[in-house]
Structure formats: structure tokens, C-alpha cells
């Protein structure tokens, strides 16, 4: 259906400045009906800013916006909606106190006077069913996992009969299966003539779905190419301004002594029967569909939601981890999956965020902060992880998602952990940063740190891990060795078919 017709939605020579940051400079992009247009760029390249201009949240400093050949001004999100433009934002924006169905329909302009609950529930059910997710539409959105929230966001956008659908990293918190479901849907929409703008940092996905690929760098448009002419290598080169390799498998590590032994771990009804060992220098991957309970295992190990069954032994000594401090005292660190809600103090500086968990180290005898020492530490990490900021005094709120992620990683590295639990460490960060994180993981493992890598990015898990633990519906279903773990076995185990036949849950050594 990709026709050489006029674009339905077009932005020309857009510029936008935030204080000292030129977020966008002379950017033009054209979306065509029935076409998936991918937008790539490093963190902070200006992708989200462009999207916010498209949906009327920001006004451009310069430039024109044209819809179906006419110049328009988009003054507000509601106006964008009236023009048939809808967006799924990078960070899910749900109303925690409203139920799922209402979240889907609340922003509809033509809802009439009375709330038809019954009809609303039915329509929400059918939209979600089409999406392939089963979610109780009557339950409040509070407490939904990020993936579930993302599904609701998608349902919300679909429920509006849009001409232009913008998706800002919709797959960031989805695992392969949900991604497949989502793509089926995106193709459906495309075939119905919707113009789709698709932002993602996962190149495999981009090249699976996109008809056109546009790359931004530092707020400027670098290239727009049809799918046929674009390759991942070229895209990466455009993004980072140099050649860069793709995901490299990490060479297997020699196991050091055992750090952690987990037996029969569980928490009332949420997950159970988790058993594994992890050794110095080892990377243990956690795979599973969203909601499989991987995060919950992480939370239990970090003492946030203490386990109620089973045992945890550190260095052979059984311990009770009932608070993050106890876990930290044992050398455990946990990088959470939700950096805005759980990870960072956004209105504070990079330095203050990095030193927070071990603030005591930066205090003098009077309990006052040794600012120099703090800054020095933060500076080290800024250099080491290439955090893009003019100084470590910059507020974290001002950073792009990827750079925020790096701050969070710095924060936990600075606790000098022996076991580092990384929950979706590369979610929402660009290829460059991702490669850096991967390099980091290698380096840390070589230093002898044990790493528990929870990730929904299956290629990543497979490339980085020495062993892969697979979870399904709160249960551990398999631990696969590096050699026996491939996409197919892991997915099969995660989805519960022939799991037993393929990969019998091996007893931990």
C-alpha cells in the first residue's frame, strides 16, 4: 500500500530550543498513509521532542506542520486528537485510579454525557483481545506492570480512529512475544491506511517493521532512506557518526566461587520455587514473558519485597534480606526497571543521584557532605559511562532517557556490588549506549562481579549470559546453559509448550 502519494502528515524545517539545548534544528519529516516510518537516533537526539511537537505539547520555535496538504497549527493535545493524530509516549501515562477500560476511553472527545460502563468494558475487552493481551478491564491501572501499562497505552491509541499514530519506543518493555503481537497490529493498522511513526532503539525490530528509516543525530536530520536501502550498519553509522559493530556475544567466563545460593524462593502467591546459584564473574540471564515474575525475584533479593518462602545464602551463610540496606550490606545492588518512579530523584543533580545509596561514605565526621569528593566520584562515572551532560551538577530531569539510565547504572556501580541485579538495563537506551552497557557488563563480570540480568530483549540475554533462567507465571521453568540456550528453546519454555521436553528444569549445581 506504500504509494508515491503526497504525505498525509508533514513537518518542515522544525526547530526547537530548550534553554541552552537546541533539541531540534531544521528537521523535516514526511509520513505517508499506509507506511511505517521508523525514527532512530541516540539518546537525546530529539526524537521525543519531535513527537511532542507533532501532538501539540510543545510548540516549535520555527517551521511548518502540514496535514493532508494544509498548513495547521497544533495548539494542544486535544487539537492533535481532533486532527486524528495520536501518540503513545515513551513513559506510559496512565491514570492509576481509573480502571483499565476507562483509561482507554477517557480522552475520547465524543463520549456524550453519561458513562456507559457496560459498553465501555465490552469495547475495551475486544480491543485488548485484538492486541492479544488478557487484562481485567475493570481493575484499576494502579500497580499494573510497565508492560501492562504499555498495552493499555497501545489500546488507547488504537481505540481512537487515527490517521497518524506515533509510537515512542512502544516495545521498550515488551518481550519478544508481545512484540510480535504488537507488530501484527501495527501491520493491520498500516494496511488500513494509517501513517505510523515508530521510534525504537532495537534495530532488529525496526528493520522488521519499518518501510522507511529516518536517523537523527544531535537534533539534526541525518538521513531518510527506504527500507530497501537501509541496513542496520548504515543506520548505526548515521546515528553515532562512525562505524560500530552489532551485538557481540560475550565470551564465556570462568566461574569463580559461589556468591549466592537461592533455594525454593517464593513470595506468597506472586512467585515460587526459584532456585539457582550464581558465582563470581558469572552472568545469569533471566528470561520470560512480561509479568513472569522476574522483577519480583529481583525485589526479593534486594529486600524491597522480602521473600516469604525459601532461603537465600550469601557466601554459604544463610541470610535474611528484609530491607535494601541489608541487601546492600551483603554486596547486592538492584537497578530497577522504572527509572522515573523508582530509580531517580529527577530534580536533583547527577552527582547527588549517584552517591545516594552510599551517602555515608561522602560525609565527614559532622555528617556534612564532602562536596569535592562527591563531585570527583560523579565525574569519574560521567567519563566512564559517557553521560552526556555539561557537568555533574546538571539536574537529572534535564537528561534524555538513555543518559538517565546511565546515571542509575553509575549509582549502583558506585556501591561496589558483588552481585548486581540489572532489571531491564538497556530499556530505552540507544545502540551506542546499549553497546556501552554491554561492554560494562563484560567488564564488570571480568572484575568478578556476579550479574543477574533481567531483560526482555532476548538477543541481549542470549548474548550476554552464561546461563539463562526462564520463568513463566511466577515459576522457574528452566535453567539453560549457554550452549543449549537459543531463541527457540527459551521462548518455548517461557510460553509453556513442550517446555518439559525441551529443557528439564535442571537442579542447580
Amino acid at each position, binding site marked *: 500500500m506504500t504509494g508515491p502519494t503526497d504525505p498525509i502528515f508533514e513537518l518542515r524545517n522544525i526547530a526547537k530550543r530548550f534553554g541552552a539545548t537546541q533539541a531540534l534544528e531544521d528537521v523535516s519529516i514526511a509520513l505517508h498513509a499506509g507506511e511505517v516510518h521508523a525514527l532512530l537516533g541516540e539518546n537525546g537526539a530529539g526524537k521525543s521532542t519531535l513527537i511532542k511537537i507533532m501532538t501539540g505539547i510543545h*510548540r516549535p*520555535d*520555527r517551521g511548518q506542520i502540514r496535514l493532508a496538504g494544509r498548513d495547521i497549527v497544533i495548539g494542544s493535545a486535544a487539537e492533535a486528537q481532533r486532527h486524528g493524530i495520536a501518540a503513545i509516549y515513551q513513559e506510559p501515562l496512565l491514570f492509576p485510579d481509573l480502571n483499565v477500560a476507562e483509561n482507554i476511553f477517557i480522552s475520547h472527545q465524543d463520549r456524550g454525557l453519561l458513562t456507559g460502563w457496560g459498553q465501555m468494558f465490552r469495547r475495551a475487552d475486544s480491543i485488548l483481545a485484538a492486541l492479544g493481551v488478557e487484562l481485567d478491564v475493570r481493575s484499576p491501572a494502579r500497580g499494573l506492570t510497565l508492560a501492562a501499562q504499555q498495552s493499555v497505552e497501545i489500546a488507547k491509541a488504537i481505540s481512537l480512529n487515527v490517521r497518524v499514530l506515533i509510537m515512542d519506543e512502544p516495545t521498550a518493555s515488551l518481550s519478544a512475544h508481545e512484540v510480535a503481537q504488537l507488530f501484527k497490529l501495527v501491520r493491520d493498522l498500516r494496511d488500513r491506511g494509517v501513517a505510523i511513526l515508530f521510534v525504537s532503539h532495537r534495530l532488529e525490530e525496526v528493520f522488521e517493521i519499518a518501510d522507511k528509516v529516518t536517523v537523527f543525530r544531535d537534533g539534526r536530520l541525518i538521513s531518510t532512506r527506504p527500507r530497501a536501502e537501509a541496513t542496520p550498519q548504515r543506520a548505526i553509522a548515521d546515528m553515532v557518526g562512525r562505524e560500530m559493530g552489532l551485538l557481540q556475544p560475550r565470551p564465556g567466563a570462568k566461574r569463580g566461587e559461589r556468591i549466592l545460593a537461592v533455594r525454593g524462593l517464593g513470595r506468597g502467591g506472586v512467585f515460587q520455587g526459584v532456585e539457582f546459584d550464581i558465582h563470581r564473574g558469572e552472568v545469569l540471564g533471566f528470561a520470560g514473558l512480561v509479568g513472569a515474575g522476574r522483577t519480583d525475584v529481583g525485589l526479593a533479593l*534486594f529486600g*524491597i519485597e522480602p521473600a516469604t518462602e525459601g532461603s537465600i545464602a550469601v557466601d554459604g551463610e544463610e541470610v535474611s534480606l528484609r*530491607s*535494601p*540496606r541489608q*541487601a*546492600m550490606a551483603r554486596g547486592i545492588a*538492584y537497578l*530497577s526497571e522504572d527509572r522515573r*518512579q*523508582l*530509580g*531517580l*530523584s*529527577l*530534580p*536533583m543533580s547527577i552527582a*547527588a543521584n549517584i552517591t*545516594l*545509596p552510599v*551517602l*555515608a561514605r*561522602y*560525609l565527614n565526621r*559532622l*555528617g*556534612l*557532605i564532602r562536596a569535592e569528593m562527591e563531585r570527583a566520584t560523579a565525574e569519574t562515572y560521567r567519563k566512564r559511562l559517557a553521560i552526556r551532560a555539561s557537568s555533574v551538577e546538571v539536574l537529572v530531569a534535564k537528561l534524555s532517557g538513555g543518559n538517565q539510565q546511565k546515571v542509575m547504572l553509575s*549509582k549502583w556501580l558506585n556501591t561496589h556490588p558483588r552481585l548486581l541485579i540489572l532489571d531491564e538495563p538497556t530499556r530505552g537506551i540507544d545502540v551506542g549506549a546499549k553497546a556501552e552497557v554491554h561492554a560494562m557488563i563484560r567488564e564488570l563480570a571480568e572484575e568478578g562481579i556476579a550479574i543477574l540480568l533481567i531483560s526482555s530483549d532476548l538477543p541481549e540475554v542470549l548474548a550476554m549470559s552464561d546461563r539463562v533462567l526462564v520463568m513463566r507465571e511466577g515459576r522457574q521453568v528452566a535453567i539453560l546453559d549457554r550452549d543449549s540456550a537459543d531463541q527457540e528453546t527459551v521462548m518455548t519454555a517461557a510460553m509453556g509448550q513442550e517446555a518439559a521436553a525441551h529443557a528439564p528444569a535442571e537442579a542447580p549445581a
Partner: protein
Amino acid sequence: MRLLARLRGWEGLLLVLLVAIVAMNVTRSPYYLGVENIVNLFQLEIEKIIVALTMTLLIINGEIDLSVASIMGLAACVMAWLFRHGAPMPWALLGGLAAGGAAGAFNGFWVAYVGLPSLAVTLAGLIGYRGVARILVEDRSYGGYPAWFDAIGQQPQLGPVTVSIAVFAVLFAIVAVILHDSGFGRIVYVMGNNLQAARYSGVRIKPAKLSLFVASGLNAALAGLLYAARLGSVRGDLAQGFELDIITIVLLGGVSIFGGSGNLVGVGLSILVILNLRNGMGLADITGNTQTSVIGALLILSVLIPNIAQTVRSNWKGRET
């Protein structure tokens, strides 16, 4: 020095306001610049501004303590009751402080360990602690304290300066250092702007919250006792209704009611603005409701005007480019 570096935006505005008010007072009243009047200017509101210091910490932390004025009353009444029942004055004073600390701990327990909203808990405290104070003194007025106690509140002890003012100055410095330079202050801010992130970073949030409420209770008790010394006698309604004035001071200082932002320079300036304004109006024979109305209007305008200015400025910029 680091404190001075924070002088910008809001604080700048307060400074301009302060200069204007002082200038007006100087030209309008011949009595304004007298040493006696300057001391009085502080002395008449001294207890409120002392309590405003710990209130600043609490509000930055994302909580609030509506019960402070009742705790002031409670501490004074406990002191009065103990003294009346034969306790030596120092013990009676300690008893008053302890009562304040206990009330603060009670608030803190429900907020930090049970997880109730502080607005609700301290609203109950506002009613309840006042009630306990009244149980102790009923409808009587307890006076007749040792002369040294009355002197603390009523006469300048350090040159022209009273003990209360000295206490305020010292507390201000301590709170400034805690808030802006100490690890605890850092935690206060982090908890205020993202409690979950603090928890996920291993910050011991419950003890931290509890200690803030205890500090608030103790400080309110201290202020209540100083007020008792200034008045020379204690009744059940001591300091009644002070909570709104105290909160007004803190908010005018630029501390966000939602927690996580604000600083003590702003609060210090806000104190000076309100005190000088009140004093100027008092000398101009403007009292009662008119005074509170003016301060209410100031509170609103101080946020409204910068907002309008910002809107105008950004519109202007938009046209320029």
C-alpha cells in the same frame, strides 16, 4: 557562601519585596528604625518563626505538621501543670519538652510506620493535643513562675537581644547547615521528590520521617515554652491558630507544598518580609483582619506575579525569533 549562591528567582523577588517594605516603613513611620522596635518586630512573632524552621524541613520532605500550634500549647500546659504540682522549674521545662517530643513521635509513628497521610494525622493532632492541654489546665491561667523564667521571655538578655531571638538565630544556622550541607538534608530532599527512589536506594525512610516529626514536636515545644515565658502565664488556648501563619511563612519562602524543593534562604527572606510587613502595618495602625488579608494577598501575588512575568517573557521571546 553556598547559601548565597542560591539567591535567584524566587529569592530575588523576596529580596526586592523586602527592600520595598523596609523603604516604605522607614518613610512612613518614625518609630520603625528604633532598636527597640526592631527587637519587637522579631519578638512579637518569634515563636512562629522558630517553628517555621522545622516546618520547612517537613514540607520539603513532602509532609506537613498541622499540630504544631497545639503542641506549643501542650508543652506549655504540661510545664505549667508540673510546676503547679510542685516540680522544680527546670524539671517542669524538661517535662514540657518531653511532651512535645512525645507528641511529635506519635505523629511520626502514624505517618512513617503506618503510612497514613500526615495531613490527616496532624489534623487529628491539632484537635487532640489541644484537648490534652485543656485537660491539664482546664479553664485556669497558670502564672507565677520564677523571675528568671519570665525574664527569658520578656527582657533582653544579650545586649538588646532576647533569648528567643538568639535561639532563633542559632536554630536557623543549624537548620541551614543540616538542610543544605548534610547528608540528612540530602535525604530530606530526595524523600520529598521521590520517596520510592529513596526507598529503592536503601535510604531508611521510616526513621528519617520519624525523626523529622520528633524534631518538629520538640521545636514546637521549645517555642511554646518560650512563648509561655514571654506571656508570663499559661492558658489552654496558648498559640491557638498559629499553624496557618507558620505554614504561610514557609510557603511564601518558596517551599513547594508538594515537597522536594525550597530552601532556607527563601524562608529566611519570607520571615523578614512578613515580620516587616506586619510591623509596618501595626505601626500604621492596621490590625486584625486587614493585616491577615494583606499577608494573604501577598502570598498569592508572590507566586502569581512571577508566573505572569514568565508567561509574558516567553510570549515575547516567541515573537522575537
